[in-house]
């Protein structure tokens, strides 16, 4: 797909430029905008069900006007719909925002720009991947509008609950849409992932060896490999579920009695589903986290004006995390009745992940140490992201311990843990990425001060919501409860739940600052200069305006790694990758 330099002179129609585009930068923007819309839906849902959890006895006419009278008659959320909102919140945030949105946006934008390629290996596949993502997003969003409600069995949709409409209304049409949407989504991720891998391996510019790649690219590379290896398993898992639902098989079903009598199904096992699901489900966590860690590595190094500490150790730990992520899925299943011996094995492998994670954290901190930290919104969000990675990762040590899981499993402790370590870390890094690369996305600058205000609201409210949840969990409160008032033993948490809901509401509303800044700046923001952050990597050597083929003339040639910040003997505190080494200069 090499483009000649004169390519950009071709006139393009609106449709080929903005809709069915094959240009990676535009596709990146399409992913971003889709993810922002889905993210808006996802967090809005959480604000709605937090109303019920914070004020269990109150009626909110607002709910009825938003969700309709089936879902919230008289402003009181229906318990099935509560589960529906929880399920869709999880599904949308995990898959559509933090998988599709995060890797989709930044892999597409940054891979060709940072490795010095004219475009992705296959522009056509790239376009198809986006449109499949768009279709699956639409299907998932559409399931909110059907009468019986969306899927309601939790984002993990464990059978048999997700199989029969008799068990809950959402397991009818809503669940069918969920499965269809996920099947399309998986196809999209596979096509996208293969494209990323091929591009990174084959289209690096001259001099761009694997050990001169920015850490973002390493992160996207490992992420794509994880996705390509694990998503097919989810697809087969979903196909078997589809068969159980529609074609009378019993892969996941056995010995089940419903209100209409005993079913024929025999011999299957829901545990099989859990194994297949979590074989994707756990790598999925790192499919979300690794791009986030890549983005923070890049931002922290650039804005501390200091090389990333331990570049090779960073790559090594990402590889280790990637490998280990495939052999830890059982820690989601300690309490399923799985053989306890296996539980021990999974405890061991899971706790191993803490080692490369610790290495990464200490390397981030050492990068900031004696740096020259510029407090742009991107940097603030990255610092926040490292903080949440520490705060949430550390409680993971408790949950990884199978013995402790007996008293923590499926309580709010788990909810607090994964929202901080996976949700917040990734979403903060995604914001960091948007603020940092906005000049590359739109050629404009976002408002810095609004970004700072957005950061402070987000981090305060994020911790305000999820830290208290650990205490609910230590008190034994199960997750996915429509109301806790059936158990007076939880009454001392009533006010804590109010506090969480207040933080959640403010946190969600504060995102308006970001929406506003994003939309306003993309149209009216001041024009960006070519390299506003004085960064080294190749994307900042491209012209500000978007052109097909990314560079006028020849592709840049790379002579050094991307982290030569504040190198002794240099006049500037940065040396771009395409500057040749001096005669007596050592690489690093």
């Amino acid at each position, binding site marked *: 797909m090499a483009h000649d330099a004169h390519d950009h002179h071709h006139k393009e129609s609106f449709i080929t430029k903005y809709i069915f585009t094959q240009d990676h930068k535009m596709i990146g923007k399409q992913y971003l905008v889709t993810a922002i819309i889905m993210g808006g839906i996802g967090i809005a849902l959480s604000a709605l069900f937090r109303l019920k959890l914070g004020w269990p006895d*109150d009626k909110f006419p607002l709910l009825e006007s938003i969700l309709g009278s089936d879902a919230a008659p008289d402003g009181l959320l229906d318990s099935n719909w509560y*589960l529906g909102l929880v399920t869709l919140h999880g599904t949308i945030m995990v898959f559509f925002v933090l998988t599709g949105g995060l890797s989709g946006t930044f892999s597409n934008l940054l891979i060709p720009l940072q490795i010095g390629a004219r475009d992705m290996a296959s522009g056509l596949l790239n376009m198809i991947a986006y449109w499949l993502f768009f279709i699956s997003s639409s299907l998932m969003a559409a399931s909110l509008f059907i009468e019986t409600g969306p899927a309601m069995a*939790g984002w993990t949709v464990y059978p*048999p*609950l997700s199989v029969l409409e008799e068990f809950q209304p959402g397991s009818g049409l809503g669940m069918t849409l969920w499965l269809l949407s996920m099947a399309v989504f998986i196809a999209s991720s596979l096509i996208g992932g293969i494209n990323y891998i091929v591009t990174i391996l084959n289209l690096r510019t001259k001099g761009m060896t694997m050990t001169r790649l920015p850490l973002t690219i390493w992160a996207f590379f490992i992420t794509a490999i994880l996705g390509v290896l694990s998503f097919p398993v989810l697809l087969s898992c979903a196909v078997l579920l589809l068969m159980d639902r529609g074609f009378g098989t019993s892969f996941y079903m056995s010995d*089940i*009695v419903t209100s209409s009598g*005993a*079913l024929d199904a025999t011999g299957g*096992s*829901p*545990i099989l589903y859990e194994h297949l699901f979590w074989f994707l489900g756990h790598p999925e966590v790192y499919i979300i986290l690794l791009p986030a860690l890549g983005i923070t590595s890049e931002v922290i190094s650039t804005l501390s004006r200091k090389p*990333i*500490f*331990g570049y090779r150790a960073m790559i090594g730990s990402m590889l280790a995390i990637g490998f280990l992520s495939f052999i830890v899925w059982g820690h989601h299943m300690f309490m*399923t009745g799985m053989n306890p011996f296996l*539980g*021990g094995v999974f405890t061991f492998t899971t*706790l191993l992940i803490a*080692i490369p994670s*610790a290495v990464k954290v*200490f390397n981030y*901190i050492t990068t*900031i140490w*004696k740096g*020259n*930290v*510029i*407090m742009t919104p991107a940097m603030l969000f990255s*610092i926040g992201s*490292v903080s949440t990675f*520490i705060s949430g990762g550390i409680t993971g040590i*408790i949950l990884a*311990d199978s*013995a*402790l899981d007996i*008293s923590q499993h499926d309580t709010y402790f788990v909810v607090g843990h994964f929202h901080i370590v996976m949700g917040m870390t990734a979403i903060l890094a995604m914001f960091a990425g948007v603020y940092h690369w906005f000049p590359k996305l739109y050629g404009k*600058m976002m*408002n810095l*001060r609004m970004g700072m205000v957005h950061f402070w609201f987000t*981090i*305060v409210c994020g911790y305000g919501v999820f*830290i208290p949840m650990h205490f609910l969990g*230590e*008190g034994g409160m*199960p997750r996915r409860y429509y109301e806790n*008032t*059936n158990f*007076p*033993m939880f*009454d*001392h948490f*009533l*006010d804590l739940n109010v506090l969480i809901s207040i933080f959640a*509401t403010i946190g969600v509303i504060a995102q308006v*600052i970001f929406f*506003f800044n994003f939309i306003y700046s993309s149209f009216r923001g001041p024009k960006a*200069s070519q390299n506003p952050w004085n960064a080294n990597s190749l994307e900042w050597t491209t012209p500000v305006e978007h052109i097909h083929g990314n560079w006028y003339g020849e592709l840049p040639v790379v002579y050094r790694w991307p982290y030569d910040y*504040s190198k002794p003997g240099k006049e500037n*505190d940065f040396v771009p990758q395409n500057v040749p080494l001096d005669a007596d200069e050592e690489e690093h």
Partner: protein
Amino acid sequence: MENKFIIVVVVALFIIALMQLMKVYDLAAKIRGEKSEEKVTRGENIFNANMLIVFMLTYFGFIIWLIFKYGMNGGLFDAASVHGQEIDSLLLFNWWVILPVFFLTNGVLFVFSWKYYYRQERKALYFPHDNRLELIWTIVPAVALSAIVIYGLKTWNDIMFNDQEGAKVVEVYGFQFGWWTRYSGDDNVLGKADYKLITASNPLGVITSENIQNSYNYLDGEVEKINLLLSESKNDEGEYFLSANNVDSLIGRMERFKRQKYRIKSAIDRGDQNDSVYKSANDDVLVQELHLIKDQPYAMKFRSKDVIHCPWVPHLRMQINAVPGMETSFNFTPTTTTQEMRAKPEVIEHYRVINEIHNERLKKLGEKEEKVEFNYLLMCNKICGAAHSNMKMDVVIETAEEFNSWIAEKQTYAQKASE
């Protein structure tokens, strides 16, 4: 309600005002020609650096306040089971390792970011790698984690591979939305059960000759009912006036009932030998609450009728999924009776607070006051449908004498059959 609406409106207005202010500030700065969106000013660097420290202190303070207010076990008290106490001490050990690391690492991150905020006259240190440092922070976590792994696995194996002699076998059975408990009686063996025998009068599908007969009757009755319905739904020409879908599903159901009867007959029913083959069910007792004897080892068995449930008794630190189609188990020994628990000073104090909050809420709702007492509870901890959050069963831990007099009043399967 209005109050909350007002709060939301105020917050929204606050944000809008903030935006307007920033626009004004932007414009003013632009006119003075001193700012661009690409350069963070010195003032902003200092402001955000200081904010990081303020935030860190608030964050740490918030956590410490939560620990003091809710304690490390959120009002669950010391575990009331042998293995639960092991879990609690393992958890405490973990916290002692983890919390210092948490405060230290977060602290260093924020303090460095604050200390090294951007100053134009300074240059950052060029420090790309240091093998010794990297080795240290690979090895130190590895050693700390080894301790956690070894202690953790020892506890896990103690709990899971714990086949104590003389453990009483009790079954808990989950369904949408409630629980059954079946005691195995004097022989300490649960009578066999099969889901195909489940009827309204035999909710667990326990196999006895009487239950088999009841199932035949039930299935025959259902088949007859459907037959009757179908024959009544025909007009004079022999055509159904029900929709084809309806007819299909009725016939499908009927066929399923016939198959079910055949499967019972061929795989379960042993004819005359039923009474001797399935005799262990005779002394079983079926109830809807769980009574346990203090210091008595139990081998609990769990099954489910429809979807995955998860029996969870927080005070005993006991949890395991109940999965349709398979049996799971959990062995444990309760150590504290309900009465002993109620007499503990920390429990009395905690329930004084709970009663205050509980009755304040009831008053607001206009309901009658009630006294909340400490009770062990078994609840569902795996999403299972609409009433998931109200799927509970009382658990009573008592002395052997109390238990014996309680169970003596319950009917065994044999007693029920002979009535």
